[in-house]
């Protein structure tokens, strides 16, 4: 199947995400204009404001976008997950070019023109409306154009906090190690940036008095109408049970599984899949923006509750459930039936050549290896630092920190020699990788189970029934099979999950490949 056929097959999704993306960018840019234009004017009237306001906008600009999205999640009103938070962040980034260009454009008006205008008895408002805005318009619009195009880029990150848009493809593609899916997001995003750039360039030319006489207002009105239509088309719909997931394949599959299971029980569902990670999902649950997602007991125990590692599977589950209930009114459903511990992975060829079976075996060779780990693994209490201490691991260089999805590719391509993956990952057989046994029992147990808000259980009593019915239905083999279908065969998550629920999936094929 060529890429363009693949692209065409996903046309509806691409279109939907493109509209979402456009909605984010247009809404945030309009909001930034509403705030930034008056601020820019204020700077020309009150020189003392100049340093603090431009300085602040500059500082905002330097915050990495993913970090800003992360910082906004716990905040009330402007925070949380979803489009609103994304728009707040995008506005923050759009402000600087708009404020700066408004200020610079007005400052650049010929002093003789301003002097004559004031001398003839223009009020400040008349000066602004008749002289300064028309003359500064091309510069101001250039600022708006920069803000818009940059916004198209930054909005792709917004998918990490569930705002939708073309970033969904990109994040999904990275976690599936499927560059075709990445391109589904990247190509329309680039196209969108070019189209908006060209459109605003036209408006810029139209408002430039040097280029023409009087059709500037027509162009502005046209753009305003287009913006309005896009905003209306993209306004979010309020729905009932919000299901989330983290940004890797297994979590997305399990989120989709919850969602479809609930839909089949006749419950209204809204999906917010592919969220940034444990931290994002957890904060969203507490903030009431998510009603349920699938978490791992070990992750909750060590990463969320920050407790030292514990290998007793039942105790971990009990402590997690008790603490979640007491602290956040969140309930743990019954375990789904499989564990997903961290899996330390090497290339199968290396394992055979060096006769590696366990992590202790590997520790002897690690001095010549490079490692590549995801962000979470580097930070977590049950992640790399503890592991290195337990096994005396020392690599040739400091581990490269990269996106989880990319570590698999890096290992397969020989860029790194060891990675921390997930035990149920479909990429393990697909890329011919080998999981080193945790012979010193370092990793805590990671049972997968749904976490759900108690308020949602009260709202929809059927929700509890559905979640209970999922208990123990997914074996490790089933999970690997589902992961394999999505990650390696590049099949659509929705279809894979639907087949599984229908009992029509044929998981036999890659079980043979595994051996």
């Amino acid at each position, binding site marked *: 199947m060529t890429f363009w056929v693949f692209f065409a097959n996903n046309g509806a999704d691409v279109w939907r995400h493109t509209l979402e993306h456009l909605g984010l960018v247009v809404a945030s840019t309009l909001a930034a204009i509403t705030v930034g234009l008056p601020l820019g004017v204020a700077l020309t009237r009150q020189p003392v404001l100049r340093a603090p306001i431009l300085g602040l906008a500059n500082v905002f600009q330097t915050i990495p976008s993913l970090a800003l999205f992360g910082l906004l999640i716990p905040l009330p009103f402007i925070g949380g997950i979803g489009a609103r938070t994304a728009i707040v962040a995008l506005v923050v980034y759009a402000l600087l070019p708009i404020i700066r260009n408004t200020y610079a454009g007005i400052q650049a008006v*010929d002093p*003789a*023109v*301003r*002097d*004559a*205008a*004031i*001398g*003839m*008895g*223009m*009020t400040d408002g*008349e000066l602004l409306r*008749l*002289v300064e805005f*028309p*003359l500064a318009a091309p510069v101001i619009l250039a600022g708006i154009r920069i803000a818009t195009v940059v916004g198209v880029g930054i909005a792709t990150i917004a998918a990490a906090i569930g705002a939708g848009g073309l970033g969904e493809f990109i994040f999904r593609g990275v976690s599936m190690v499927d560059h075709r899916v990445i391109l589904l997001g990247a190509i329309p995003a680039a196209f969108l940036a070019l189209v908006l750039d060209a459109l605003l360039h036209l408006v810029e030319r139209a408002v430039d*008095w040097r280029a023409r006489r009087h059709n500037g207002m027509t162009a502005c009105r046209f753009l305003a109408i287009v913006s309005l239509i896009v905003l209306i088309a993209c306004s979010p719909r309020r729905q009932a049970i919000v299901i989330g997931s983290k940004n890797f394949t297994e979590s997305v599959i399990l989120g989709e599984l919850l969602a479809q299971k609930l839909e089949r029980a006749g419950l209204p569902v809204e999906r917010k899949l592919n969220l940034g990670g444990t931290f994002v999902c957890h904060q969203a649950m507490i903030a009431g923006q998510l009603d349920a997602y699938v978490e791992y007991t070990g992750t909750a125990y060590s990463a969320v509750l920050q407790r030292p590692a514990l290998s007793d599977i039942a105790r971990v589950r009990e402590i997690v459930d008790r603490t979640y209930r007491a602290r956040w009114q969140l309930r743990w459903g019954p375990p789904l039936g499989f564990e997903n511990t961290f899996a330390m992975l090497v290339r199968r060829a290396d394992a055979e050549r060096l006769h590696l079976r366990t992590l202790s075996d590997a520790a002897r060779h690690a001095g010549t290896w490079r490692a590549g780990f995801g962000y979470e693994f580097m930070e977590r209490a049950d992640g790399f630092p503890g592991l290195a201490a337990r096994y005396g691991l020392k690599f040739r260089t400091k581990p490269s920190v990269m996106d989880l999805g990319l570590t698999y590719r890096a290992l397969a391509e020989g860029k790194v020699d060891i990675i921390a993956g997930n035990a149920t990952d479909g990429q393990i057989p697909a890329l011919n990788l080998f999981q080193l046994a945790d012979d010193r029992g370092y990793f805590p147990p990671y049972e997968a189970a749904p976490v759900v808000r108690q308020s949602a259980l009260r709202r929809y009593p059927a929700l509890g029934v559905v979640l209970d019915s999922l208990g123990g239905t997914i074996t490790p083999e089933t999970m690997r099979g589902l992961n394999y279908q999505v990650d390696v065969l590049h099949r659509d998550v929705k279809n894979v999950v639907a087949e599984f629920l229908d009992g029509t999936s044929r998981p036999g094929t890659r079980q043979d490949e595994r051996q």
Partner: protein
Amino acid sequence: MPDLAIEFCGTRFAVNGRTIVGPLDLTIRRSETLVFLGRSGSGKTTSLRLINRLLVPTSGTVQVDGRSTLDWDPVRLRRRIGYMIQDVGLLPHFTVARNVGLVPRLERWPGDRVGARVTELLELVGLAPADFAHRLPHELSGGQRQRVGVARALAADPPILLCDEPFGALDTATRADLQREFAALIARLGKTVVFVTHDVREALMLASRIAVFHDGRIAFLGSVEEFASTDRPPVVALRGLT
């Protein structure tokens, strides 16, 4: 109405405690053309800008029509004072017609009256309305731009006209034409004119009286004849330049 149009009473203007102009005591009579003559930096432009409240005196007052500029609404004050500067300051995105009709329009004159006034003024300053009304300022020569500047300053028929070296940037021939026409125009219209220049010949051509500025003070004030015959050193020095 008193016979005085503008009066400086002990007027001083200082920046950061340093006196730039003053103290000045000066009366400008209705319908006279008073020329502020002096070298650059002598305080003549600053004094002019005190009249339409682009600057505010540090001490003393400037009275326009018997009222201190501080008691005027600055917008109202400026709309009854025509203002011309060397760089003209035409709005570059407005056509000639819109530039000339600007103050009448700000004053909310009805559209047809503005149009008639614009046509009248363009003819008055020697620009054929059919040819020029729809041009933008950058499509005009320097002399034509300054003619538009004159028309604009006169548009709302202000009793007072302030001119800050309006013809300073023009070539000699064009300047001579404009000076001659301008002198005839203000004589006919009976405006009170305050005209800033460093050009003695221009002063002699336009003035009914001349005030010579030196170091922020008025070093000489008198008629053209008195200017020609006085032996005051700053005046002698200026006369030497002609």
